């Protein structure tokens, strides 16, 4: 019996290596052990990214970039368009949860040492994706063109300007001129909806292909246990068993997002006025707060160097170290010494304390 589905299947079979693709999809097994829950975070980050793409595309239907129109168009979305408030609130909430999830995913991978051979490049692509997500956050923040976002962008673009030699060109590139104007808005809009999504799509493709190729990493401790006691080893198939569990988590997350957006809708604030003074207590988004607070606390002169410069230099070193972490960890076997998890703990603690401090500080 040649059902229509079979005919299509056969047509495709004659042209594409479907069985190879299927084999790759079915190859992956998900290890089951006491840390298995951490495997959900990457998928959750991916889900939130999907929510961002969908709600972002919806917002594009009504949003207009431009100093005279941006604020009004977001206001229009929130007050005139049916469910516009919901779509925008979900976009904002999901953006924040996405950054949080990406950080949680990074630290879980770090503590489980999943970055070790052969998964170095999976880690590198992941860290680059986290930087991209921060770029999305920064560029998207200005788009409603309100006072908060205006000054946050002003300060945010001033920071790289402190770097010697390339600082000024970077500032001009980011702002599309000397000051934050309508040109900055169209520029960041272009980054937010075209350039960053294109790069992110590519990187996510690479990241996922690598994960599919190498399979899930088993933490060194569990690996050692399984070697000592092979009968204790447990695995489930990625497809469909793990995917179904992950879908359930996504379903709950979607419900949670809807609830957050409905109960705590994102406010729009006041339209940006380039000639007004910065309001008191101005702060960036929470994921930039630890950096913001650090720069606030660094004395103007430190070790004979400009304090600001030193701080920015430190951020660069930390970012670079995060990117190249798999190549810094040369311990074998991997669970003997713990200097990397230890350092990561200190760093995580510092970030948390500074974020909270930045949050409560005047």
């Amino acid at each position: 019996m040649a059902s229509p589905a079979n005919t299509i299947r056969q047509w495709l079979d004659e042209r594409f290596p479907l069985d190879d693709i299927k084999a790759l999809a079915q190859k992956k097994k998900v290890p089951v052990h006491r840390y298995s829950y951490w495997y959900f975070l990457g998928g959750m980050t991916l889900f939130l990214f999907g929510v961002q793409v969908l709600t972002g595309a919806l917002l594009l239907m009504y949003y207009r970039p431009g100093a005279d129109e941006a604020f009004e168009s977001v206001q229009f979305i929130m007050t005139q368009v049916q469910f516009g408030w919901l779509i925008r609130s979900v976009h904002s909430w999901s953006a924040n949860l996405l950054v949080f999830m990406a950080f949680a995913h990074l630290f879980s991978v770090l503590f489980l040492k999943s970055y070790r051979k052969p998964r170095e490049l999976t880690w590198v692509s992941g860290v680059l994706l986290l930087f991209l997500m921060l770029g999305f956050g920064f560029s998207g923040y200005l788009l409603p063109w309100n006072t908060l976002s205006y000054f946050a962008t002003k300060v945010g673009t001033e920071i790289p300007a402190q770097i010697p030699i390339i600082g000024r060109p970077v500032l001009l590139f980011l702002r599309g001129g000397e000051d934050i104007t309508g040109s900055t808005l169209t520029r960041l809009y272009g980054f937010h909806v075209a350039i960053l999504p294109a790069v992110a799509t590519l990187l996510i493709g690479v990241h996922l292909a690598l994960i599919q190729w190498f399979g899930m990493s088993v933490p060194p401790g569990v690996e050692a246990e399984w070697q000592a006691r092979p009968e204790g080893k447990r695995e489930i198939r990625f497809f469909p068993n793990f995917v179904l569990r992950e879908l359930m988590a996504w379903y709950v997350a979607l419900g949670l997002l809807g609830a957050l957006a409905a109960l705590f809708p994102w406010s729009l604030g006041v339209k940006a006025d380039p000639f007004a003074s910065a309001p008191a207590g101005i702060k960036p988004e929470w994921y930039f707060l630890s950096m913001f607070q650090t720069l606030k606390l660094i004395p103007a002169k430190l070790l004979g160097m400009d304090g600001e410069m030193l701080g920015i230099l430190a951020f660069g070193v930390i970012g670079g170290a995060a990117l190249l972490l798999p190549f810094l960890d040369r311990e074998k076997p991997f669970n003997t010494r713990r200097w990397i998890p230890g350092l990561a703990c200190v760093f995580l603690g510092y970030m948390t304390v500074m974020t909270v401090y930045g949050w409560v500080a005047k």
Partner: protein
Amino acid sequence: MSTASGVNATAPQSAPANLPRRRFVNILLGTGLLASAASFLYPILRYLVPPKLPDLGGDAVLAARVPEMKPNTAKTFRFGTRPGLLVQTASGEYRAMSATCTHLGCTVQYRPDLREIWCACHNGMYDLNGRNISGPPPRPLEAFEVQVRGDDIFVRRKQEA
């Protein structure tokens, strides 16, 4: 599924009786999922419907002033969100109508040489009452009411009797 095998292991004799129960659970889960999917999709569909912009067509619009019009000329004016056409006929009468061609929506114009209203896109012709007389337009242009108050020429949508 562990739950199904668990049920079967404890009560193997009730396997046929389990079938309706499993179907009941499936229906319950399925409708729940469908309902929640609908609740996610509904706001999106509603969001995609553009909100109605305030239409000023109900009120009188100042279309032109008497000194700027001459016999056998016309002027397009804003009528709400769409263009309207105000014609002064050769005999001096004012006529006003929608300037949106009923064929494919181009903006029509007055042809003083023909004393008719012409659509440049597909050569549609209307007479000075807006009636479609030749070419592809399927319906007449919507005619408006003209009121001259002093030097101002106001146009409003014809009131339904």
